[in-house]
């Protein structure tokens, strides 16, 4: 063993260990200022550790952990947004403490849970064992359930309960699917841990029983799809986004949905490697398109600003799942890019929305007007964010959507019609709402915002850069992954 490889293993361990240590520390420490700082510092360290994965040599895939081209992207994105959200959270939570919506005891719990959640998500990304991945996804989900209910209002409890019930259905289906995968693998690979190791599964999947794989994938798609927020199973998502603390909404939209998506992708790769199994594409495309069109229409009748952006998340998850379902280098590339862009943009929007809702003391769209006049920094941030998420050039989301639409027209022209239709409907809805919120007659409180603009604008800047110029190494990297995904 050479020294660099040892160091690389340390990087993976660090990505996992830092959140755990931080969670333990935060659970024990009183005081708000110090804990918020530790939260930020821990998130930053995790992000640094994740970045080091790029440069260091990767460890050989083991029974439990794996680092490959696909999950590095997810991990880095995850830790980056986790870091910026912790920055935003520090200023957001201070305000909540002032207004008395949260008590210091709540806060300690909140910070500890935040790190546990980061740990769960990172673990899900680096796990090479489908059982371990399941455990990690569940861990992340349960912590978010707890955080969604943290305000203890009627609505928050209802949202958390609904999230919990639907989430547990997802839990059950996903585990059942996992067991079925194991059963399919067991005759070929043999009993024991090996039959759950993803890298081994992919190598030998061609010999698995295709019928069992098909059923397993359907369960996995339903199970993890519930957590992605795909259309028939999305009911928890708007409530959970609207009622929890806004940093959690940002993390839910920006990260947790990606975790579930990552799980679906892993199994999609698995299934695609077996020539006799059903092709997962049509299933995913159907669910994606349904989510897209459904959520696009739902956008029109929202009265709650966070709920509206939650539906927008469903819409974009639909687009991404559709892209990966369509498959092929171009569509996969578009899906990957779109996922990154969506995470960045949507969390930026939630950063803005969080501060806005705090200033106005409400989340009702009708009570929020004329923001560019009263709070230009926040208002324009929101305008840019919404423009980006609606797919206006020159932002990165436009780029990925453009790639996807052109790829769809080239390969499945018929499907392009509902796709473009859904995109346009959502575009109209978002702009309609945006004009009122940003440019209407100012209404409500005008007190200056005590906000941290750095997280929001750094995200938006990245999205803008991605829309104008993608660095060739990144493009090459993404293309490589896109080929990997088939």
């Amino acid at each position, binding site marked *: 063993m050479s020294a660099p490889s040892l160091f690389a293993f340390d990087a993976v361990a660090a990505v996992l260990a830092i959140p755990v240590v931080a969670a333990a520390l935060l659970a024990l420490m009183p005081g708000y200022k110090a804990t918020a700082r530790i939260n930020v510092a821990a998130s930053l360290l995790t992000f640094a550790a994740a970045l080091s994965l790029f440069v260091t040599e990767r460890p050989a895939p083991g029974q439990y952990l794996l680092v490959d081209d696909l999950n590095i992207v997810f991990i880095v994105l995850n830790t980056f947004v986790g870091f910026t959200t912790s920055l935003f959270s520090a200023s957001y939570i201070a305000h909540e403490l002032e207004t008395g919506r949260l008590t210091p005891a709540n806060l300690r719990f909140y910070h500890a849970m935040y790190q546990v959640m980061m740990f769960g998500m990172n673990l899900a990304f680096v796990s090479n064992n489908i059982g371990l991945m399941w*455990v990690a996804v569940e861990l992340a989900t349960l912590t978010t359930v707890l955080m969604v209910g943290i305000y203890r209002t*009627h609505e928050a409890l209802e949202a958390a*309960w609904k999230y919990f019930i639907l989430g547990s259905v997802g839990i059950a289906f996903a*585990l059942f699917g996992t*067991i079925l995968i194991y*059963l399919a693998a067991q005759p070929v690979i043999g009993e024991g841990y090996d039959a759950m190791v993803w890298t081994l599964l992919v190598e030998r999947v061609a010999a698995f029983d295709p019928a069992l794989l098909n059923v397993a994938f359907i369960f996995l798609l339903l199970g993890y799809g519930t957590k992605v927020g795909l259309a028939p199973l999305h009911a928890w998502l708007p409530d959970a986004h609207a009622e929890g603390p806004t940093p959690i909404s940002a993390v839910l939209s920006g990260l947790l949905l990606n975790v579930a998506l990552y799980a679906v992708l892993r199994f999609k790769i698995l299934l695609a490697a077996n020539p006799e199994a059903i092709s997962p594409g049509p299933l995913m495309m159907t669910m994606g398109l349904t989510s897209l069109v459904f959520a696009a229409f739902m956008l029109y009748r929202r009265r709650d600003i966070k709920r509206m952006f939650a539906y927008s998340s469903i819409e974009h998850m639909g687009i991404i799942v559709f892209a990966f379902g369509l498959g092929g280098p171009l569509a996969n590339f578009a899906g990957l890019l779109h996922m990154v862009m969506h995470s960045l943009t949507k969390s930026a929007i939630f950063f803005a929305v969080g501060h806005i809702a705090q200033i106005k003391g409400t989340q009702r769209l009708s009570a929020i007007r004329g923001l560019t006049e009263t709070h230009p920094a926040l208002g324009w941030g929101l305008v840019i964010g919404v423009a980006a998420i609606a797919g206006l050039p020159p932002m990165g989301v436009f780029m990925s959507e453009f790639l996807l639409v052109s790829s769809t027209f080239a390969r499945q022209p018929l499907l392009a019609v509902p796709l473009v239709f859904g995109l346009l409907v959502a575009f109209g809805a978002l702009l309609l709402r945006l004009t009122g919120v940003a440019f209407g007659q100012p209404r409500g409180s005008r007190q200056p915002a005590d906000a941290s603009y750095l997280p929001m604008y750094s995200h938006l800047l990245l999205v803008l850069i991605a829309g104008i110029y993608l660095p060739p190494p990144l493009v090459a990297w993404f293309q490589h992954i896109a080929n990997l995904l088939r």
Partner: protein
Amino acid sequence: MQGPVYFDIAHMLAGGLVLVSMMMLYQDRLYALLNVFALHSLLLTLSVAWQAFIQGAPHLYVTAAIALIFKVVVIPVALHHMIRKLGIHREIETVVGIGATMLAGIGLVALSIVVMLRVTPEADPLTREDLAFALSVLLLGLLIMVTRRNAVSQVVGFMSLENGLVLAAAGAKGMPLVVEISVAFSILIAFIVIGVFLFRIRERFDTVDVRALDDVRGRRRK
């Protein structure tokens, strides 16, 4: 170890779980539901222990013991206590009639049998049956969750659904311990979560009827 008697006992225990799941659909009293759930978990314990014996897999005994301690004793007793303490209405309100629910349940059992038997023609007959029954129990648990309005009975539905998962995991030969322990853990965590919720719900309103929560939402949206 194979043989008609080994097979028959496993078959009876797993099939018994399906039957008890149907019985849970039929209950209209909370206490009775809890008792039936305890019976359900007891059958699960026996079933898992039997699988451990047949497969010669000692780690499954641990799973069985966890099921016995938590799901047969601790959780039903705790829920009994909770119902008494919170003064929860003891009748279960259903969304649709019991007859229709049971008919749907039969449909789900038929579905899972058809699906699982069709996709596993080459598997060991014991595993096949186990999977078919496990999926039935899972779907029936889901049905309980969907058709009951009361939070406690939804919780019970969830736990019976977990029982189905444990059955499936135990039936899959040589499945590593990680998963079983994690299942037990998730149940535990889930229970803590639920417990916290029930108490919080109680703090805020005088009911654990989930419909009350819907009413709140309805008013807000007006």
